[in-house]
């Protein structure tokens, strides 16, 4: 992992990483990747990936409206709203 790899990852994750810390971040992520590379030693030929400990499947329910309208309560804690909409900086000129 070098500075440019971290810059690319940070962009994908939409996280600002300051210039002052990028070398430390690169070094520690390299250490973590070395740890996880131990996985390559395992023989996993023919082993199905495991997503749920009990191999559960998605529970289905009837297609009915069950949620109440709680927009006001949810927007009361938002950084910026107007007329029931969340406000962000202008994205289209």
């Amino acid at each position, binding site marked *: 992992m070098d500075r440019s790899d971290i810059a690319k990852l940070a962009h994908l994750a939409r996280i600002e990483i300051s210039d002052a810390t990028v070398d430390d971040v690169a070094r520690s992520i390299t250490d973590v990747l070395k740890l996880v590379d131990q996985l390559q030693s395992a023989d*996993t030929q023919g082993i199905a990936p495991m997503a749920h400990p009990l191999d559960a499947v998605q529970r289905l329910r009837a297609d009915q409206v069950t949620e109440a309208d709680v927009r006001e309560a949810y927007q009361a804690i938002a950084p910026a709203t107007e007329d029931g909409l969340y406000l962000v900086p202008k994205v289209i000129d």
Partner: protein
Amino acid sequence: MHKLTIAELIQGLRNKDFSSVELTRHYLDRINRLDASYNSYVTVTEEIALQQAAAADARLAAGDAPALCGVPIAHKDIFCTEGVRTSCGSKMLDNFVPPYNATIVENYLRDGAVMLGKVNMDEFAMGSSNETSYYGPVKNPWDTNCVPGGSSGGSAAAVAAHLAPGATASDTGGSIRQPASLCGLTGIKPTYGRVSRWGMIAFASSLDQAGVLTRTAEDAAIMLNSMTSFDDKDSTCVDEPLSDYTASLNEPLKGLRIGMPEQYFGEGLNPETSDRVHAAIAEFEKLGATVKSISLPHSALSVPAYYVIAPAECSANLSRFDGVRYGHRCDNPKDLEDLYKRSRGEGFGEEVKRRILVGTYALSAGYYDAYYRKAQQVRRLIKQDFVDAFAEVDVVMGPTATSPAFAFGSKGDDPVAMYLEDIYTIATNLAGLPGLSIPCGLVDNKPVGLQIIGNYFSEAKLLNVAHQFQQVTDFHQLTAPGIE
């Protein structure tokens, strides 16, 4: 009153030895006087606690008292509490006041428990020392130069310092059991899916599970009875019949088959910790259990598999914190991308950022098969190790942590050294099994925990085994020095 267990408090309240308001005031007074030494609480909800206590007293007087009526508890600050700030130990959620309660919080309200406050934790439950909290580290009541463990370090320190008789907690890779070990408590992580995750702020959704930290196994059984429920709102919650975990506490252990995994007693284990654990297992033999050595051959791969799966899931889960709908937003964003990047850059601490980046890498184009898919395959091998073991034994026993509590800063800035702290606990989460830690002695005047792992939905058996041990030993009654 703070010396009493939850079982004793329930009796005392029903016998009118004291009222819930008296009991709650007593705990609030202790928190106000003593918690500056431990930093276990992030928020003390004095007003709510006293209202809930008064309501509980009315129900007790009317003879209409549910299971935990009037008993004060603390909630880990990962559980959403309506109208009460829920920070998850992060600057990102320093201003987050949830508009709803987590299901488990509702369950405790239904059963009459009183909320003393919200307790400290590693940021977004990512850590094994409580050093990553935005609100500062929690100190171990047994030695305030040492960590209480993590991520449920606030829950553990509060109970160990008798600032709450019990606390809720959560465990993704050991976050209940390791603090239980380091603070001399009983802590149980139930089977994955046994307890609702709704309203528990998500870290790694296929591993996260709520549980409790208490002083005794009997108290853990009482608290877990209230916590467990089937919940439609959590699609991974399992619709299995509920058990009364107190019902089988007194069953004898004659014939119990214990397996000791050879991989849990190898290099890296503190020799004195090993001695305490061996002595504890010998105690079970006296109670009629048989012990055999077993093998969990893929144990060494559990930490590497976890550090792909947990970061991958965390990178997806934490993408919701974008500065738009709630949580931290940076000042004067120049455009939407700047808003996302600076809000997240400012709101998350170092360890959280590191895990998001690792997870982003593991899931990025071209790497998915080599990392995520491979880790999910290894996860099945780890589960199969346990399936094979439980064909021969009833419970697996070993150490919870490699050593007693370590000093602040002693793992340096090497994240991998900290990750290896959970080497004995992580496999249980990957397999989705229930696990419990109980105190089994002291090393250097600091507690050591015995870990007991059971088969799926064997929580009642684990609590029975722990309770029987606590009937013939007094390690769970030891109190940290200096606790009034």
